[in-house]
């Protein structure tokens, strides 16, 4: 069933801009002399002198760029008490802090505070705690809230107050401990920018889902994925960049420019890919199979809601409530938390998103198959993955699982076994690889 190229392809134009933005960010963290925070905290960007470095992308990048160094960092973590079968993102990242140098031998940008965040993954609850244990730096737990089922007004009230406290406390503490100033205006700008980026991201998702051939593969999307988070410090640049991406994707969709020229099989994934082995996307493309991403990949657009008419929206309760007074710091934080305390991005826990939405997602993406990774070392990444597979199979999607350690740790990823499994999957469906 080998076919020739069916559609025209073109290189992406936003690529260079993305590279430039990423390089700029990399530079900004290398030269940090101010306070470096760790964690998933939007408020931190409203401190001009606080830079947020998340351990997940850092850990993933370490493994991706320099395997021996990442391995060494993990060993440094392991001998201090980090289980070797536990999350590699953090094993890498904090191992780096223990080693004290980055790959090229230059000093490690030391973090000076940590903001862990549980619930998406239990291992996030311990985020950075190792550094706190060894170096006595301040830590603020940013509790996330979950419960299954529909929105519950009664439960929401106390939970929302708790969440607001968890954001306000560190803001006040950072001012007190580090003598920094929190800028309310900056916070508002960031929220505005965030709103726009969500809109663009949502539209990109929609274009990828509805257009055959898809104008963008997730491989391309991932190369710009972190930019939303990385450039939080500069909302204008972020918004401008996402507008650029959206425009190009729209143009490609209108003109039938394909991401994969011989697209014959559309597949989706579950959540983080193996960041250290992205080659499998290209391998699958040789079979004419395009990856359209995961709920995780399309999370930029906010907690998704798939409407019966096939369009994609954002769950109302996760939006910033409109028209609310934002005069005090507390007001702003309150608005930034949205109406619902529950973390709607905690897609692994929320029953609706995990169980029903993955099937809806597959349908919206017009997916023929799903490749669900099961990670031995990552609880949040693996939780209920097998169950999801069953719901997808029930819905008629062809599912395959593959094993690895964790997206930031390639110890247990048997690359050749993965490729063999991909061969089986595709050849079993009658496709043959087309090597150019």
């Amino acid at each position, binding site marked *: 069933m080998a076919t020739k190229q069916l559609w025209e392809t073109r290189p992406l134009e936003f690529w260079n801009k993305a590279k430039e933005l990423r390089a700029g960010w990399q530079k900004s963290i290398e030269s940090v002399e101010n306070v470096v925070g760790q964690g998933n905290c939007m408020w931190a960007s409203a401190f001009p002198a606080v830079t947020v470095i998340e351990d997940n992308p850092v850990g993933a990048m370490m493994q991706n760029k320099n*395997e021996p160094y990442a391995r060494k960092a993990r060993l440094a973590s392991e*001998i201090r008490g980090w289980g*070797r*079968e536990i999350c590699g993102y953090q094993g890498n990242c904090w191992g780096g802090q223990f080693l004290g140098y980055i790959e090229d031998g230059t000093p490690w940008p030391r973090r000076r505070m940590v903001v862990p965040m549980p619930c998406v993954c239990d291992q996030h609850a311990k985020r950075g705690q190792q550094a706190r244990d060894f170096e006595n730096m301040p830590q603020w737990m940013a509790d996330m809230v979950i419960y299954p089922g529909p929105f519950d007004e009664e439960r929401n009230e106390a939970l929302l107050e708790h969440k607001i406290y968890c954001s306000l406390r560190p803001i006040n503490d950072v001012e007190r401990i580090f003598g920094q100033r929190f800028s309310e205006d900056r916070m508002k700008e960031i929220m505005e920018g965030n709103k726009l980026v969500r809109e663009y991201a949502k539209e990109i998702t929609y274009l990828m889902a509805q257009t055959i051939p898809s104008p963008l593969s997730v491989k391309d999307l991932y190369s710009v994925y972190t930019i939303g988070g990385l450039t939080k410090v500069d909302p204008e640049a972020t918004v401008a960049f996402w507008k650029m991406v959206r425009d190009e994707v729209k143009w490609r969709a209108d003109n039938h420019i394909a991401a994969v020229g011989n697209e014959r099989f559309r597949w989706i994934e579950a959540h983080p890919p193996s960041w250290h082995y992205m*080659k499998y996307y*290209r*391998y699958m493309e040789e079979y004419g199979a395009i990856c359209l991403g995961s709920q995780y990949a399309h999370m930029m657009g906010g907690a998704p809601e798939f409407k019966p008419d096939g369009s994609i929206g954002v769950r109302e309760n996760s939006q910033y409530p409109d028209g609310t007074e934002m005069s005090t710091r507390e007001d702003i934080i309150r608005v930034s938390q949205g109406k619902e305390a529950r973390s709607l991005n905690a897609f692994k826990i929320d029953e609706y998103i995990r169980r029903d939405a993955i099937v809806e997602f597959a349908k919206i993406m017009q997916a023929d198959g799903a490749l669900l990774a099961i990670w031995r070392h990552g609880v949040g990444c693996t939780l209920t993955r097998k169950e999801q597979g069953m719901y997808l199979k029930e819905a008629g999607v062809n599912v395959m699982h593959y094993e690895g350690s964790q997206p930031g740790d390639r*110890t*247990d990823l048997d690359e050749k076994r993965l*490729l063999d499994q991909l061969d089986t999957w595709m050849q079993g469906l009658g496709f043959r690889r087309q090597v150019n």
Partner: protein
Amino acid sequence: MVQKFGKWPESCWTSDKIDWKAAKAITAGVDLGTGSAQCAIFCDGELFGWSNLRVGASFKQIAEEVIIHAVGNSGLTADKIGVIGATGFARDNAAYATKKLDEVHCHAKGARYMYGPSVTTVVDLGGQTMKAIRLYEWDRVRDIAINDKCATGQGRNIEQMCELLQVPITEIGEKSLDVKGDPEPVSTTCYNFARTETMGQFRPEFRAEPLTENEVYATHMLAVAWRMLGAIGKMQPLDPGEIMVYEDLGFTGGLAKNPGITKRIEKELRVTALTSEYDPMLAGAIGAALLA
């Protein structure tokens, strides 16, 4: 499998200079491991004979045989040895033993005998377990770290890998060192994962060069070495603030004869291990004899 690639040759030695009949005290130590068994006999503190055998289907049988091989044709028999210390996984099968001892202390003592009293770090690479032992001035064990449960059987792993790859166990270490730079190791989690990975290793990776023969060996040796570093690092210093120094490092056990592993550990720890005239596999038995 007809040819045996994964086994160390058996050996034994008996002194022809010492007359055991003249000795005041004869002590012996046996170390009955899962893969191999050793025996060491001392006459008045001097090594009289030793043996190093493979373990077959019966632990009871090998427990008898190690003694027989160690005494050679000198006429000495087990009942004439006053004190016999037994250690190792299957020590319970040494019916003649007068004392049963734990492996860690035996290896520590044996290493001090073999490498001299300066030894502070002993790493035993055995068939099923791997132990790192920290000693201080006197023969008191300060801390021990044993492999994680999932990393059990590293010694056995190497044997099986040699069978699969059809390379003699005596050569795999040297060969694995003959590489330009260490490639990425196979899974360090579990030897079973490593075995699954072995198969694909000659497959050219997607748009990349396949590994060379020696590089494949290196991936396995590095994985074992890496697992051991995990245990070595977990040992605590005497004082919380003390920086661990691994000089005076001694390897014991079967894998100690595998430079592919020991050299890699030495490289990471930036030290050179001590050497000894004795077969490092004997450490447990020597220790048992001395402690008993």
